[in-house]
């Protein structure tokens, strides 16, 4: 990821490609209380990969929803090949040749690849479904795209890996032969080799004349793939750069309007790391084997590994969701096998899940109730609801200030907060019960650049106050920048350890060898 982008892909120019195939002019969209898009103008040339970058909330998704026909703009127009176009429904946009691949997978798990590809436009013969024809067409498309043959047309989507499912999404989008393809964070769930395969595919598609709008947070990727990069900020276009003239620093400055000088807080010094708090020795589950892991008070340990390396399963063990079949789990020297999430919490381990919406938040309850959840859960069910916090000597408003959660008051419903504030509130939930160990899974997923650094500082502060922190992240820069030590997993076991500040290459090598 640190090598210079390959020049061959970037200098290829499709014939007659300077007339824009897509033009969006003066698009404005208002929602109650916020202007999501303000006179945004954006164009794409045929055969180019045009990247769209910006913080969460900058307007990228809204702009793509307008293009994809899911939202109608308040003003402005869209032109395809110079002709005016307007879409009332995503289907209309699709018929006009615009394909959108969203970040959330839109596949039906219990249907086959072919059934998913043809969902809504099934082929029939004399009124009866023609499964053979659909399978044939799907297989042909998969072959034409040069995708791995283990993605067969009649395999159940459920049986495919996340990376394979992503590829099926692409097959589905391409099966209607679009002229413009919008890809929203396509590599979010992919590891390095899979992402490489995707980039090769994108190069191929470009050569076939497809125009691609590429939305991503991963700026090195963007610099490598795109011909032009457009930066959005607060609903307005900040500017469009040619990739050759751009670098990460410049793009970030355009995105946030300031230099991010110090990206990560400083690591722990020698004396700041205390005694061992958590010890896993020879731990095995039906999926994992030979897990050896230690956590000391005051340190942040990063957990690295590719998709399928077992990271997720290890986290499940720690938060009490997976049964341990062999080995020892010790906290402060005492054996503590976590047989349920509640036991893990009682044992002093707090877990912040990667999917906040499904596993972390109580969206319909107030911020205050969310923060007090664990405090109350650990006290008696029949104790007064306020006495639990009082007995621990905690003031929720103090803790809220400590984590810097920005809300007008604590009665606001949790679901209305931004990603960053939600994460902070969740940290507050754990700080209120003073756990010994905090496990973060994808700590800054879905959080803007501004707020990310806030979370990193929170983690470091928690470590400095004596907690042991385990951080699982697929964003290597974040992992390497924040950790005092990095544990790398591979093929369901621990492959090795590296000191903090190791190179990305070293981590990758351990993860893939």
């Amino acid at each position, binding site marked *: 990821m640190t090598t210079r982008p390959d020049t061959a892909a970037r200098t290829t120019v499709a014939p007659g490609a300077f007339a824009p195939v897509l033009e969006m002019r003066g698009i404005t969209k208002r929602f109650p209380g916020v202007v999501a898009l303000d006179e945004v103008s954006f164009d794409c040339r045929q055969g180019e990969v045009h990247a769209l970058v910006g913080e969460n909330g900058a307007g990228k998704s809204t702009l793509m929803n307008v293009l994809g026909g899911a939202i109608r703009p308040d003003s402005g127009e869209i032109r395809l090949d110079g002709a005016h176009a307007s879409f009332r429904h995503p289907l209309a946009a699709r018929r006009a040749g615009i394909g959108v691949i969203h970040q959330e997978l839109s596949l039906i798990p219990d249907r086959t690849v072919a059934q998913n590809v043809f969902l809504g436009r099934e082929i029939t013969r004399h009124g009866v479904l023609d499964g053979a024809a659909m399978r044939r067409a799907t297989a042909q498309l998969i072959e034409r795209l040069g995708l791995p043959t283990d993605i067969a047309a009649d395999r159940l989507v459920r049986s495919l890996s996340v990376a394979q499912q992503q590829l099926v999404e692409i097959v589905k989008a391409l099966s209607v032969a679009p002229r413009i393809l919008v890809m929203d964070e396509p590599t979010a769930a992919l590891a390095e080799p899979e992402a490489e395969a995707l980039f090769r595919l994108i190069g191929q598609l470009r050569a076939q004349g497809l125009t691609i709008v590429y939305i991503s947070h991963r700026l090195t990727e963007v610099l490598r793939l795109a011909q032009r990069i457009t930066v959005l900020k607060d609903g307005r276009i900040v500017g469009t750069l040619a990739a050759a003239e751009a670098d990460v620093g410049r793009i970030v400055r355009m995105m946030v309007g300031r230099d991010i000088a110090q990206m990560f807080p400083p690591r722990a010094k020698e004396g700041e790391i205390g005694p061992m708090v958590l010890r896993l020795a020879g731990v095995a589950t039906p999926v994992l084997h030979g897990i050896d892991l230690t956590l000391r008070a005051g340190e942040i340990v990063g957990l690295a590994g590719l998709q399928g390396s077992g990271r997720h399963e290890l986290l499940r063990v720690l938060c009490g969701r997976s049964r341990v079949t062999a080995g020892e789990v010790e906290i402060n020297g005492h054996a503590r096998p976590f047989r349920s999430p509640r036991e893990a919490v009682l044992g002093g381990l707090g877990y912040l*899940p990667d999917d906040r919406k*499904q596993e972390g*938040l109580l969206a319909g309850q107030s911020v205050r109730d969310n923060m007090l959840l664990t405090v109350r859960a650990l006290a008696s069910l*029949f104790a007064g609801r306020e006495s639990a916090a009082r007995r621990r000597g905690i003031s929720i408003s103090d803790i809220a200030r400590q984590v810097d*959660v920005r809300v007008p008051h*604590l009665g606001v419903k949790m679901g209305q907060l931004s990603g960053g504030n939600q994460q902070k509130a969740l940290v507050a939930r754990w700080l209120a019960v003073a756990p010994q160990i905090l496990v973060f899974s994808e700590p800054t997923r879905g959080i803007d650049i501004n707020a990310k650094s806030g979370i990193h500082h929170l983690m470091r502060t928690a470590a400095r106050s004596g907690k042991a922190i385990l951080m699982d992240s697929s964003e290597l820069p974040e992992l390497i920048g924040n950790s005092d030590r990095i544990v790398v997993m591979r093929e369901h076991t621990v492959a090795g350890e590296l000191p903090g500040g190791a190179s990305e290459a070293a981590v990758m090598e351990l993860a893939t060898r």
Partner: protein
Amino acid sequence: MSALSDAAGQPARLAMLLRAMSGVLVLLCLFAAIVFFDPNFLHPGPMMAFVKRSTPLMILAMGQLFVIVTGGFDLSVGAIVSFTVLSSALLLNGDAAGTWWVVPLVLALGAMLGTINGLVVSRLRVPSIIATLGMMISINGAGLYWSGGSARGYLPDAYRVLGRGNLPAIGPISGVPVAMLVLLAVVLGASWLMHRASFGKMLLAVGDNARAAELAGVPVNRVRTLSFMLSGLSAGIAGVLLGGFSGPSTGVGAGLEMQAISATVIGGAQLVGGRGSVAMALAGSLTLQALFTLLNLIGLPKPLRDAVQGAILIAAVAYSALRETRKH
């Protein structure tokens, strides 16, 4: 950085107040309509009778509230009510002296049946619809089997005073039903559990997002089981009152579960869980009972009562769903 306000904001309080006021308004309109058909209604006698009649439903609705807030349903309460009445009659068989141990026993039975519901839902992971429907069928069958298919036994006055008796006059106040005392005790207990104790917050958490609650350390199984136990207990209490009120019969509890769910929904609880209050359950029960009284006065034939109830249930849920979507 100023200290963060720990109180609920002004707009949220106002919305809650408006919603409560609109509910009271509906209730007043219904009363007005009833008075129109029966001018006697406004006198203390008929009013007390109305409250006495509504008490079982109010108690059932409060029990059902605990389950609905966690996102489940308890369809077995009607059967538990019937079973309570039948078993009381069989156990007592007219012997007034037995009241002091039979009443606690049937209450305990109700709580136990509720606990079984709770365990089946939380431990065996059976969806509450199926679990409580199955229990309903089983409990009905058990009751019929024990009583041989028809209501046998006889409930002594010592027992029946709970449901239909009045307190002796205290100064100028007379004719206060004993049932109201029972209601007061239940309301105090339920309010404390729901709004003062941590339990209420745990219920809301489980209903809002059970997975998140579990990961945060909430004893989800225990909370769920307790909610069903309380629902079963409330059905036992309602059964004792109803037994006193109308005497033993096999079908005394039929349809009560639907009424309890309707009442909770009319009162504003959300069926997907995560919201609800005791006041809502009470308001909804009174509203539903007023509606039934009105329909009775208008002269709606009894067989159609089921049909009307079905329509009311759908309308209540639809209205609450509409209110939800309009809010966003």
